[in-house]
C-alpha cells in the first residue's frame, strides 16, 4: 500500500488582495496525493477548493491572488519556487486541469482540434501533422469522431465540450489531473458518462486525480481519500471508507445530513444553518463555531488543532480529542 507521494502541499496560505480587504482564501492547508490515487476535495462554494487547485498550477488571477507561504511539492520539487518558464513546462504536461464550466473553457474562434493539438505540440518535439494525428486519437478516445476535428466549440453540446476539455487535459499523459467540478455544469446522464470516462482513463493511464466536487455521491464512487474543506481549511481528512463511516467533524456530519434520504419520512431538507464566515474577517476560534450544533464556549476562543482519531484520519475539532482517542 505504500505508494509514492506525487503531490504534497504543506502549510499552504493563499490570499486575495482587493482594493479594501484581504481575503483569506486558503489557510494552512496540508494535503498529499499518492500516485494513481484520487483525492476528493469537498465543501461549499467559496470554501477555497478551486483556489487550492489553481495554486498547484499557479494559474491564480495575477495581481490579486498571492501564495503567501507554504510549499507545494510535486515529484519532490517545490512548485511555488519555480520560474514561470519552468512552470510552463509543467502545466498541461505533468499537471493538467479540467475546468468547471465547459461552455466557456474553450476558445470560441479556434477549432477544437487545434486547441488539443496545440497542447500536444507544445510539450512534445513532434511535427504539426503528428500532433494533429494524436489530437484526433484523443478525440476518438473521449468518444468524439475525429471528423469533427476542425469544428468550433459552438458546434458542440456542453457534454461534448467537456469531453474536449478532458481530451485536452489528458493529451500529454499528465501525472496529475486537477478536476474542478468537472460534472457540475452537465446534466445527470452526461455526468455519469463523463465520470465513467474519467475513471477508465485514469485506470488506463495511471494518473492521480484531485477531484473537486460538491457531490458526495461522486466522491464515494471515485475517490480513495477525501478532504473536507471549510473556510480555507481542511477540517477533516481521511480515506473514503473512514470518512463515510466515521465522519467526526460536525461540518462533515452536516454535509451528510443535508443530503435528502429516500427512506426517511421527513418533508424538509436539512441544510446546515447559517453561512460560511466572511473570508475577509475570519473568526479567531473555530471557523465553524457559529454554525456548529455542538459548539461550546472554548470553540470561539481557540482554533482547534488537528487530531488523528484513527490512522490517517485527521479532524480539526476539539470534540474529536475526547470522543475517539
Amino acid at each position, binding site marked *: 500500500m505504500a505508494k509514492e507521494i506525487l503531490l504534497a502541499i504543506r502549510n499552504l496560505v493563499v490570499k486575495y488582495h482587493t482594493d479594501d480587504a484581504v481575503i483569506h482564501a486558503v489557510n494552512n492547508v496540508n494535503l498529499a496525493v499518492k500516485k494513481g490515487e484520487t483525492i476528493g476535495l469537498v465543501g461549499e462554494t467559496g470554501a477555497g477548493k478551486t483556489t487550492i487547485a489553481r495554486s498547484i*498550477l499557479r*494559474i491564480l488571477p495575477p*495581481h490579486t491572488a498571492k501564495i503567501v507561504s507554504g510549499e507545494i511539492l510535486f515529484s519532490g520539487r517545490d512548485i511555488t519556487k519555480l520560474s*514561470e*518558464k519552468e512552470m*510552463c*513546462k*509543467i*502545466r*498541461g*504536461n505533468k499537471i*493538467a*486541469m479540467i*475546468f468547471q*464550466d465547459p461552455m*466557456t*473553457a*474553450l*476558445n*470560441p*474562434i*479556434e*477549432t477544437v482540434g487545434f*486547441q488539443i493539438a*496545440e*497542447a500536444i505540440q*507544445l*510539450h512534445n518535439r513532434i511535427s504539426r501533422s503528428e500532433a494533429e494525428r494524436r489530437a484526433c486519437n484523443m478525440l*476518438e478516445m473521449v*468518444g*468524439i*469522431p475525429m*471528423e*469533427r476535428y476542425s*469544428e*468550433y466549440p*459552438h*458546434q458542440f453540446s456542453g457534454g*461534448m465540450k467537456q469531453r474536449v*476539455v478532458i481530451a*485536452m487535459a489528458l493529451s500529454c499523459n499528465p501525472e496529475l489531473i486537477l478536476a474542478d467540478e468537472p460534472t457540475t455544469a452537465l446534466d445527470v446522464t452526461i455526468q455519469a*458518462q463523463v465520470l*465513467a*470516462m474519467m475513471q*477508465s482513463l485514469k485506470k488506463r493511464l495511471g494518473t492521480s486525480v484531485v477531484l473537486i466536487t460538491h457531490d458526495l455521491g461522486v466522491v464515494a464512487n471515485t475517490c480513495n481519500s477525501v478532504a473536507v474543506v471549510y473556510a480555507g481549511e481542511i477540517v477533516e481528512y481521511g480515506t473514503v471508507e473512514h470518512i463515510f463511516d466515521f465522519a467526526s467533524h460536525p461540518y462533515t456530519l452536516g454535509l451528510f445530513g443535508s443530503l435528502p434520504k429516500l427512506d426517511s419520512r421527513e418533508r424538509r431538507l436539512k441544510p446546515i444553518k447559517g453561512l460560511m464566515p466572511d473570508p475577509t474577517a475570519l473568526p479567531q476560534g473555530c471557523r465553524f463555531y457559529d454554525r456548529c450544533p455542538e459548539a461550546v464556549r472554548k470553540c470561539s476562543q481557540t482554533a482547534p488543532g488537528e487530531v488523528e482519531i484513527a490512522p490517517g484520519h485527521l479532524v480539526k475539532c476539539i470534540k474529536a480529542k475526547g470522543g475517539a482517542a
Partner: protein
Amino acid sequence: MARYIAKRVLMLIPVMLGISLVVLILIDITPGDPARMVLGAQATQEQVDELREELGLNDPLPVRYGRFLWSVLHGDFGTSLLTKRPVADEMLERFPYTLMLVTLGTLLSVLIGIPIGIFAAVNQHSWKDNAAIFLSLIAVSMPNFWFALLLIRFFGVRLRWLPISRVAVWQGWILPCATMALGLAALIARQMRSDMLEVLRQDYITTARAKGLADGRLIYRHALKNAMIPVIMVIGGIFGTSLGGSLITEVIFSIPGLGQYIMTGLYNRDYPVIQSGILIVSALFAVIILIVDVIFALVDPRIRLQYTGKAKRKAGKQVGKETQAIENF
C-alpha cells in the same frame, strides 16, 4: 458567403433611396437659393426666376426626386451649378486625396493604437497602464484643429521641417496624417485595451494558460485574435466616417478632398453637388461596413456559420458514431 454579400449589396438599394430622399427634403427646407448664389447679388429678380425655372427648382418635390433618381440610374450625377463641371468628375479628382489622407491616417492610428492598447492591458495595475490611459485620454480630448495648429506652428513654422499645405510632395502628408491619427489612435488604444482586458478575464484564457502556453503566445494567439473583433468594427467605422468627414484636416492643410468639396457645395447651395456628394459618400461608407462584416466572418467562426447556412455536417450519421464510442467504455 457570396450569397450573403449579394444580399447585402441588394439591401444597399433601399438605404440609398432613403438617404437621397432625406437629403432632398433637407435641401428643400433649408433657406437659400442656388440661382441667387450663381448669379450673384447684382442680378435682377427676373434673371433669378428665369434660372430657377431652367434648373427645374420650381417643380414639386416628387418630380425633382424622380428626376434625380432617373439621372443617377443613367450614371449622371449632375453638374455643379458653380463650376459647370460634372459632379462625378470633380469627385473623382478629389477622391484620391481623401482616400490617401484617410488610409494613411487610419493606418497610422492602427499602428499606434493597437500596440498601446495591448501594452496597457498587459500591464494592468502598473504605472505603465496608467500612463498609457492618461496619454490616450489627453489625445482623445484634444481638439483636432488645435492639434493641427500646434503641429503647423512647431514643425512648419518654427523648425521649418515640413511643408504645411503642399500635398504634392510626400512630406506634405505627414502633418495631416498625424492630425487625423492622434485622436483615432487614442480611440483605438482605449477600445483595444478594454477588449483585451475583457478577453484576458475569460475562462478559455485560463484554459490556455493551464495548457502551458507562455505569455507571449497566450496574448498574441489566443487573446488578441478574440479581442480584435470589436476593434475591427471600430476601425471600420472610423475609416468609413472619415471618408466623408475629415473636413477639418482637409481645410487646415488645404487638401482638395471630398469633405471640403461637399462643404463648399453646401455653403453655395450647389444642389447637385450636395445630393450626389452625400449619396456617393454614404455608398462608400456602406461598402466599407460591408467589408468589415466580411472580415468579421473570416475571423469569427460563429458568424461565419450563420452566413454559410447549413454546414456540411451530417448530424444523424455522426450522433450514431458518438453513442457507439461512449458505449465502448
